């Protein structure tokens, strides 16, 4: 008594759907991180440094090892403004 092929169809659907979701997420994550692995567990220092990277290179994950910043970088530091509560 072989297993009828209809019994295996749901497994194909399950594997296909999980595969599409997983690989799709992987592709989107890679795309948003410009082909690199995502940064995770970032603390305040990491976030501030990534914002500085953005101001130097112009892209979210771009890196540069120049010893001198591009012109105008020293005047691009943003101050966060916050309304006083008290």
């Amino acid at each position, binding site marked *: 008594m072989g297993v009828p092929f209809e019994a295996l169809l749901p497994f194909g659907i399950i594997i296909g759907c999980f595969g599409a979701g997983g690989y799709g997420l992987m592709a989107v994550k890679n795309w948003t991180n410009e082909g*690199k*692995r995502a*940064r*995770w*567990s970032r603390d*305040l220092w*990491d976030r501030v*440094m*990534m914002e*500085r*990277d953005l101001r*130097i*290179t112009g892209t979210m*994950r*771009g*890196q*540069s*090892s*120049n*010893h*001198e*910043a*591009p012109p105008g*970088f*020293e*005047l*691009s*530091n*943003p*101050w*966060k*403004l*916050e*309304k006083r509560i008290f």
Partner: protein
Amino acid sequence: MSRREPQFNQQVLVDTTPMPADIPKVAEIGATSAPLYSAAYFIGDRCQAYNDDFMKCKAESNGRGELECLKEGRKVTRCAASVIKDINTHCLSQFTAHWECLENWNHRLWECRKAEKELNACVFDKLGLQKRIPGAVDEKKPLPTHSVYSANYKQC
């Protein structure tokens, strides 16, 4: 850091007023986070005197350190830039390999020991700077040759 980080800021202010003309110009460092982290121990090795001087000045100036320690701060910037420039000149391939590895592995040093050893050897040969971990219990202890917990199998 005595300043509280803003949590609910709606807008940012970019102050484009340039520095006064009487303050000598120093270019800011253009290296981003991963190259800076990769070069950090070498910057510390060459610039420790300047860095300590700057921190001492800040501690002794009663909260006016941003204005009164500009001279010391300029020395810190110039020294760090000189280290990065030297590493770029003499050890570019090892340096690039290491910081690209760091950037790909969430800036975790233990994932990139192989590239780090090559970079350390090159920098020590060419520039005489070496990685020392400040405040380590045993500073003479060599770096681990491979990492047991590393997920980056290419670097083990």
